[in-house]
């Protein structure tokens, strides 16, 4: 999936469905975490202006939609849903914390994100900006989530 050409399809449209064809049978599967993530993004989208008590702006649909696209491209259907929190200034953070490590993806705006990965072993912390290639996130999710 290209993140250079993301669209602003409404978040409340039907869940993302994977279509696979086996002979004459077409199979559909919805990600296990789909509804959890969509509900959470909708809650964050409903936060009013000043949601943090100090005038922070609302979390735009472009940011929420971009977050969803990243998850669809980076996660398998059975991985754990991230915790999703708003950030002052209009961003979103996706977080996974397990006994294998921690992953945080800060999304400031579409195509402007920063990845943080800390493994439980003694490997060095990864902290890097990501814009269109989220393979580092995919790799970290495979180990941690």
């Amino acid at each position, binding site marked *: 999936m290209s993140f250079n050409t993301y669209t602003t399809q409404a978040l409340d449209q039907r869940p993302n469905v994977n279509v696979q064809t086996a002979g004459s049978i077409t199979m559909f599967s919805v990600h296990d975490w789909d509804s959890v993530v969509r509900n*959470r993004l909708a*809650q*964050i989208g409903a*936060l009013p202006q000043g*949601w*943090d*008590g*100090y005038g922070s702006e609302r979390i735009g649909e472009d940011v929420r939609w971009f977050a969803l696209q990243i998850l669809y491209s980076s996660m398998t259907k059975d991985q*754990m849903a991230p*915790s*999703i*929190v*708003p*950030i*002052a*200034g*209009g*961003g979103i*953070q996706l*977080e996974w*914390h*397990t*006994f294998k490590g*921690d992953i*945080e993806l*800060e*999304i*400031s*705006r579409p195509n402007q994100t*920063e990845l*943080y990965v800390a493994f439980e072993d003694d490997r060095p*912390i990864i*902290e890097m900006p990501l814009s269109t290639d989220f393979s580092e996130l995919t790799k970290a999710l495979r180990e941690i989530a």
Partner: protein
Amino acid sequence: VSAAFEIPRDERGHPKPHDHPNFDGQKRVIRRVEDNGVHIVLAKDGVGRRISSAIFKNTKPTPHDYVSCDSENCIIERGFEPKSYVADNPKWCGAIILTAESMRLVEREGHPLSIGMWPLPENHCHGAIWGKINSSRAIELLRNCEWLWEAEGVRIVE
């Protein structure tokens, strides 16, 4: 000393990034904690709860965008008790506190922090933290924090 300090302001009257005497050395910075999934996320065990590093972040770090805080020194100087002062609204479920000195430990070359005052009509002790705080810096800040007002069942860090 803090009362005599004049807050630098821009042409709109908004405070410019500055370091205020209310945040010198061992004087402490308070950050209020909000529940409802705003500042709190699932812990490693998938059951417990912890504070998100997002509590110290602002994704638009311009002179007019900052992370809000409260000055313990200002609150005490005005004759209030800090915990009661920050627990003034049910939207908050706790508050963490750390010294300005320990906050400055996360400063890096080219990434300074300014910790100043941004008084509001409803909160004269409202402060502002300017500067980019990424995840590793925010987590380091959380490690330096203690509870001023403990959020029930929430860990600051793991």
